[in-house]
């Protein structure tokens, strides 16, 4: 009985320690939140006075990688004007540590990055936009009653052309 009690006590002591460590590890992972679609969905319809620019990308997608600096510049330029840039990585979650985080660090990406972990794309692609065939890069821009979906690559000036009239 005593053994069981002590084992139980030790377990009690260990559990919070383990939790603390894993929370810390997650935090140090360049703040990449891994979400399933249900957790992500509210980000597609925030009801406030901000303008949201949500870009779907992956480290293996060359045109995506090319346009990331444009999105990041948009974030830097307009963050004080209620423009929120969210970069949604579709990389395999197994590649967070060896691809996604190194990419973010090497390119000094300042925008928020999350990773969408949802292999059955047929379920969630139409919920992002009925117009989306599934090719990336793809971007949703919305604010108030405006909602744009773009299955294409952007240059910085092209993004500005869309958002400036909405600000």
């Amino acid at each position, binding site marked *: 009985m005593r053994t069981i009690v002590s084992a139980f006590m030790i377990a009690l002591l260990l559990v919070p320690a383990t939790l603390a460590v894993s929370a810390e590890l997650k935090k140090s992972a360049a703040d990449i939140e891994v979400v399933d679609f249900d957790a992500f969905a509210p980000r597609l319809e925030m009801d406030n006075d901000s303008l949201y620019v949500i870009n779907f990308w992956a480290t293996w997608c060359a045109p995506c990688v090319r346009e990331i600096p444009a999105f990041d510049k948009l974030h830097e330029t307009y963050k004080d004007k209620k423009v929120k840039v969210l970069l949604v990585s579709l990389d*395999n979650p197994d590649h967070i540590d060896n691809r996604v985080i190194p990419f973010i660090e090497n390119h000094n990406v300042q925008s928020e990055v999350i990773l969408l972990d949802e292999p059955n794309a*047929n*379920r969630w692609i139409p919920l992002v936009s009925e117009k989306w065939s*599934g*090719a*990336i890069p793809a971007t949703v821009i919305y604010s108030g009653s405006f909602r744009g979906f773009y*299955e*294409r690559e952007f240059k910085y000036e092209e993004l500005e052309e869309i958002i400036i009239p909405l600000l």
Partner: protein
Amino acid sequence: MLFVALFSTGLVAQGYEVGDVATDFHLLNVDGNHVSMSDYEDAKGIVLIFSCNHCPYVVAYEDRMIELHKAYAPKGFPVIAVNPNDTIAEPRDSYTKMIERAEEKNFPFAYLIDADQTIYPQYGATRTPHVFLLEKVGEEFVVAYIGAIDDNYRDADAVETPYLANAIDALLAGETPDPTFTRAIGCTIKVRQ
């Protein structure tokens, strides 16, 4: 040039819908010969997959494409893979590299290059992999299903619905596939700049 202009403004031509008659083609295969769908005289249809070398989603599906061909070519539905990417924009998808990949993986199906990028826009392919299942009706190839191979690119063992195989089975049974359209994440087709 026209397509470059259309794509750069984001106005993509719509392409085929289920029920449309698909255009045949005459494209260079990795074995050096040109291939058309009409060459497959005994086929009941064609599993046309816009594919390439470099895209991780394609790589994830290569073994499944091989299995599909092995399972369905004998039943009258061979796979034909077509690389729609511009090889200057994406050198990893060059014709030479296609030959290398076909040899490495021992592709049992034709792997063609849409070198002038004239075929994929007619189909409305936007990504790789992008499947067009065609049913032969008389001498014509009619689009029967457009979309994904299955519902889990990451893990073949975790697939719940093999959309493409189900669609072929439906055609073989004389039925209409359900669904006839699915979506999947894929690599954008690389257009000549």
